[in-house]
């Protein structure tokens, strides 16, 4: 997610002072992002206790109301409390994307190590499948597969894992290929160290920052894709307090209680931007490391 990750070489001498300035300027913003992400996680864990209402409790007398002292963000068409539903909704908002990021990173790393070390047919088959997965827009594949098979939330998560892992496969494989011929790897091998040990002790530490940055980016992409699917009515079942689904269910009362739509939209955006900022920062750290080498 770095502005420089796309092609420019930020290594020229004139850039460093400006980049340095920019980095310090981003400092407070970075900490705000950390606090926001931490808050969302705390809310997701404690939602059952801190939510003012039961997120499923209907109160048809108080339906589609704007913000009030009783309901800070108003109610939806069935009189359910928007604030409580937003709080509980942070669970599907965080768990699915986190599972995508973690599984994609682990699977992608293992596949990348395997392809890089074994080479030959295993390598080319892996890389061709990676190219194939790159050509497919994730959201479209998820709509078709999850919509037709009717697999729900976790099938959507699985599809996103498969389509997110290739980015890590590429990074790890490239690192293996770059390091494999280095004298110290040959030395390690002569000393009788196993490939596993070489991989985990010598190669992975080099790519760990890039993998971390990738994982944060994968979280953002998965959050946007899963909430998009929920918005289209694919994945989570009707009535579930989920941000994407809330937008779809409340779109008809946009004029009566805009918070029923704007609230979940803001939650998705704020969480995504905060995690994206952390990813940006992680990329800055990786490019800085490369420059210092």
């Amino acid at each position, binding site marked *: 997610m770095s502005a420089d990750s796309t092609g*420019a070489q930020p290594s020229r001498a004139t850039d460093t002072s400006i980049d340095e300035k920019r980095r310090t300027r981003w400092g407070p913003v970075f900490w705000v992002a950390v606090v926001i992400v931490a808050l969302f996680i705390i809310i997701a864990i404690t939602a059952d206790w801190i939510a003012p209402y039961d997120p499923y409790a209907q109160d048809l007398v108080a339906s589609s109301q704007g913000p009030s002292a009783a309901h800070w963000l108003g109610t939806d068409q069935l009189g359910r409390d928007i604030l409580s539903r937003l709080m509980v909704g942070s669970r599907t908002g965080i768990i699915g994307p986190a599972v995508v990021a973690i599984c994609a990173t682990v699977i992608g790393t293992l596949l990348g190590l395997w392809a890089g070390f074994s080479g030959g047919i295993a390598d080319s088959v892996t890389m061709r499948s990676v190219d194939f997965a790159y050509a497919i827009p994730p959201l479209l594949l998820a*709509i078709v597969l999850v919509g037709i098979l*009717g697999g729900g939330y976790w099938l959507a998560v699985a599809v996103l894992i498969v389509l997110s892992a290739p980015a890590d496969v590429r990074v790890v494989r490239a690192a293996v290929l770059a390091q494999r011929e280095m004298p110290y790897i040959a030395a390690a091998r002569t000393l009788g160290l196993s490939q596993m040990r070489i991989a985990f002790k010598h190669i992975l530490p080099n790519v760990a920052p890039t993998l971390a940055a990738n994982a944060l980016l994968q979280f953002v992409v998965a959050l946007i894709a899963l909430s998009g699917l929920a918005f289209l009515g694919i994945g989570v079942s009707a009535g579930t307090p989920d941000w994407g689904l809330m*937008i779809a269910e409340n779109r008809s009362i946009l004029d009566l209680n*805009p918070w029923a739509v*704007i609230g979940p939209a803001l939650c*998705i955006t704020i969480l995504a931007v905060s995690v994206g900022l952390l990813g940006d920062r992680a990329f800055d750290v990786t490019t800085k490391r490369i420059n210092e080498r």
Partner: protein
Amino acid sequence: MTFAAYALRRVVAIVATIALLSLLVFALLALTPGDPAITLLGPQNATPEAVAAIRERYGLGDPFLVQYGNWAVAALQGDFGDSIRSSEPVMSVITSRLWTTVWLALYAFIITVVVAIPLGILAAVRRGSWIDRLASSITLIALCTPAFAIGFLLIYVFSVQLDWFPGFGNGDGFFDTIWHLTLPALALATLQIPILLRQTRAAVMDVVDRDYIVFARSRGLSRSRIWLRYVLRNGSLPVLTSAGLILAFSLAGAVLIENVFALQGLGSLLVSSVGTLDLPVVQALALLTAILVLVTNLVIDLLYYALDPRLRRAGAAA
């Protein structure tokens, strides 16, 4: 490797990819839970006679590969069967929805180019200035905001509150359509702008303090000549690459945005067809979309090769 050999190799690879994809797309029918004959008929029309007739017509008793062969041969001729919902041929359902999506994409693309390229160049030239920081903040926020959230925000502000633009529907006639498509196109452009802006900024930054630019300046070439002949020409290559990414983003974005604004385009057709298990339409849309993405990327790569003399020379030497 000559250009022709390179092009040929790429075309062969793409044809193979499309063949593999078509097999997967066809397999959707077999993957759908329930009897394929009943899926194709729709549950409400599934009388025993109709089921027998559809089995006969689609050869559902044949081995899978024979079925696939028949389907693929018909698909090559543009025949994807009949839509289950409307009983019309799939291709005429698709063409009736095509133009809304094309206009939306074109409108959004124009907004994207007009905003992103000047802003990207400005951000690169005034590196580290407030405008650069503003551009990178906008980029990050826009990249992390879902299309439908932007859509509803636009509807709330410009349709519900200000009442400047309609919040839903296609409109009739040229100007009415443009008026109706303005908010959706803005929402779609918001998705594309960060990609193009980022590429433009990086590309220009990469070129602008190269030695040959300094040299051109010292030879006394005019500013406009340096910009047009040196900076923009060299900077356009990486920007071209992002076109494929923008297309993929637009396709996914259009699905959500057409749903937000209740537009009758291909994206909303895909979602409603998935929802009603109208499989022939889903198969056709999935395959055509994949082909569109693959062919666009091929054209971009070939253009890249044709535009960049260094690549050609490297190819000739190898």
